[in-house]
């Protein structure tokens, strides 16, 4: 303990990450899986054995084999290459959407929780209105209205997630608004905005991290869902949602590999993000350091 206390701060933070990973095998597993997914997202296009868009009518609808690990689809494209390449797009959409809703939700929620009064009442009603819609239908509406592009999927996914962040931050900030350390920060010459941003808000991070990791999973599902029903990413772009949608037609005729493999990728990614929640929380929570 004293060794940790005397170590430089940067090393202390790193040592803490290592400690959290060691302490909990589930966290270690989820972070290793995340590393694999990240690797696939970065190097996927370079590693893919076939061009994900190249059609080859001669080898259409082949079952998994040594040359085509996940088989080929109705146009003869290699399913493995497509699933691998799709990782980058799906991850990008979900991370961008979650980042956006994290930032917007934090600002709105922190303001509502700290100042209360009409700021709180106004913001809370707007957020309630968003939550009153069936969220997926709202996302469909937004994409349909704004147009079928990747950016619009990101915006739609971000908007439907904002209320969850805002409400969480609002509650966390609200209980700490009058805490001794917040008053002490103001005595120490911090204005309201500084007190809120640098003293109160960071204390809301541990529960936020759980929300972030759950949300990353949802965001991927949401993007895939939008693509599945034909909104969002357009064929022939490789994307898990479209691949499942297109492959679904072939399951009845016995060509199961078209939908199952991208579906599995989707499932494993969502599963990984959900598992990561507790680990992320432990990393940002200084109270877990002993």
């Amino acid at each position, binding site marked *: 303990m*004293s060794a940790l206390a005397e170590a430089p701060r940067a090393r202390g933070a790193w040592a803490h990450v290592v400690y959290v990973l060691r302490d909990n095998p589930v966290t270690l597993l989820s972070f290793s899986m995340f590393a694999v997914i990240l690797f696939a997202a970065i190097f996927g296009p370079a590693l893919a054995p076939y061009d994900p868009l190249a059609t080859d009518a001669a080898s259409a609808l082949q079952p998994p084999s040594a040359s085509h690990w996940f088989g080929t689809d109705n146009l003869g494209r290699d399913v493995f290459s497509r699933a691998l390449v799709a990782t980058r797009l799906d991850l990008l959409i979900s991370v961008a959407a979650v980042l956006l809703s994290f930032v917007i939700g934090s600002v709105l929620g922190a303001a509502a929780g700290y100042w209360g009064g009409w700021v709180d009442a106004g913001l809370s009603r707007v957020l309630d209105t968003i939550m009153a819609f069936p969220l997926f239908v709202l996302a469909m509406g937004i994409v349909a209205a704004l147009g079928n592009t990747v950016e619009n999927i990101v915006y739609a996914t971000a908007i439907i997630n904002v209320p969850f962040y805002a409400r969480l931050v609002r509650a966390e900030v609200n209980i700490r608004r009058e805490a001794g350390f917040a008053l002490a920060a103001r*005595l120490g010459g911090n204005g309201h905005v500084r007190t809120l941003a640098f003293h109160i808000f960071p204390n809301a991070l541990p529960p936020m991290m759980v929300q972030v990791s759950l949300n990353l999973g949802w965001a991927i599902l949401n993007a895939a869902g939008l693509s599945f029903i034909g909104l969002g990413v357009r064929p022939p772009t490789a994307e898990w949602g479209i691949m499942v949608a297109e492959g679904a037609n072939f399951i009845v005729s016995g060509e199961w590999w078209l939908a199952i493999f991208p579906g599995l990728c989707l499932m494993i990614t969502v599963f990984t993000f959900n598992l990561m929640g507790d680990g992320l929380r432990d990393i940002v929570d200084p109270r877990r350091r002993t």
Partner: protein
Amino acid sequence: MLSIKDLAVSFRTRRGEVDAVRGVSFELAKGETLGVVGESGSGKSVTSYALMRILDAGGWIKAGEATYSGVDLRRASEREMRDIRGREISMIFQNPRAALNPIRKVGAQIEDVLRRHGKATSANARAKAIEALEAVRINDAAARAEAYPFELSGGMCQRIVVAIALACDPRLLIMDEPTTGLDITTQKAVMDLTRELIRERGMSAILITHDLGLASEYCDRLAVMKDGKIVETGPAASVFGAPQDVYTRRLVDATPRRGVSIRSLLPAEARTAPPPRPALGGPLLEVLRLEKAYPGKSGPVRAVKGVTFTIREGQSVGLVGESGCGKSTTSSMLVRLLDVTSGSILFRGEDIAAIPAKDFIRHPLRRDIQMVFQDATDSLNPRHAARDSIADPLRRLAGLSGARLKAKVEEAAELVGLPIHLLDRFPHQLSGGQKARVGIARAVALDPKFLILDEPTAALDVSIQAVVLNLLADLRAKLGMTYLFVSHDLNVVRLLCDHVIVMKGGEIIEQGPAEEVMDRPAHPYTKSLLDAAPQPPAPAPRLRAAV
């Protein structure tokens, strides 16, 4: 009646097994009240939880015997224990509000207990519950039974907890810090009532407390615990009057009471010459007809009703009163965290009440008026290491950075006696006393002229309180600061203050030099406050000198 022999309790934790209680033995006779006294972490509560077999997860009785009227409490089945709890042995917990179910009427909660132990049927439960409320001297019991806990005061809630505990006529009552968080007059009322009921019913009782004064006033016998062991037992008067053990003597010394000086709270070997009292200068702070009103349902609620007082430079002023008297509101206004409704606060002639709290943050006087908060844990940001907590005001208000900031932080830590290597720890890695020091270091690092101390020792053990009070007295002499010491504990105020202001219901009812107010109180309320403080028997000087 109750006999404990070599009881040992352990907890499994992340860092291996921790022994909380290691070999505790005592006997409790019928009709006797035993006080178990110790500081936090001494294992006093764990001992009683072990008796009731309600230890937290991971805790188990490792060794020893506990027998209650022939029943082996260690080996009794869970079913037998359920019958014993409440019917034979009852327990009163620390926080009465937490012990009551907030969404059920208090009458219904008493009925539950009665029915659970077969002492009442659904037909007569209501009548018996009202009877139980009457037994704890609650007026208009039938109407009170219909109240929810939040509608009742803290003292009233504790009476209801007592009523629940006594509803099934238990033969042993265990009270775990029953009056923590209650005002001093309420504490006296609750304790007097409990003592009377225990005597009336011929019950035995165990009072677990950190307050040696309280225990010696209400118990027949005392057992002093330290680190999971009993270091001394004996009749209350002799344990307090002539402590045999070194630790007990330190506890007795550290208990603030009438007629002692601030240095005598410390263990004998740490006593140095008392700090000189700084010479008083001109008026530093003049408070004129200060008022604070909050909008309420039926017109404004006046929390502070026009108080006027003067604090002279170098003076240490005590602001005393019970919860809700307006002392915290007054200090928040003085430290300029709260806007005033009317009145003025002259700081060296300048009216700082006219500056809105929002703008005062950038005012040059911000450095000169600082505050030490009540709860050291709550007032330190859990995400900031001690170093950051102390550095933040210096960075913001004194414009320090880099090596000069580091040097100043370390200087402040040294001033309050906080080891430098603890500066990189987070609040949860520090003990209560260390956290209090960080809070004080943060305030004094700016060299303020005027420091408000809001019950800075309320959450601390007495021995640490003794050290912190002495530290504050030394700092005042060294740095020439002026103090406003806000407290409900007159015995502590007496030690540190030259001048005392007593508040009640938002008004000042009495003020004057400390000795005068304490020894010859003019107002009956001041008198009742002084009388309510537990008066432990004064230690016999002859015996203390002999050891």
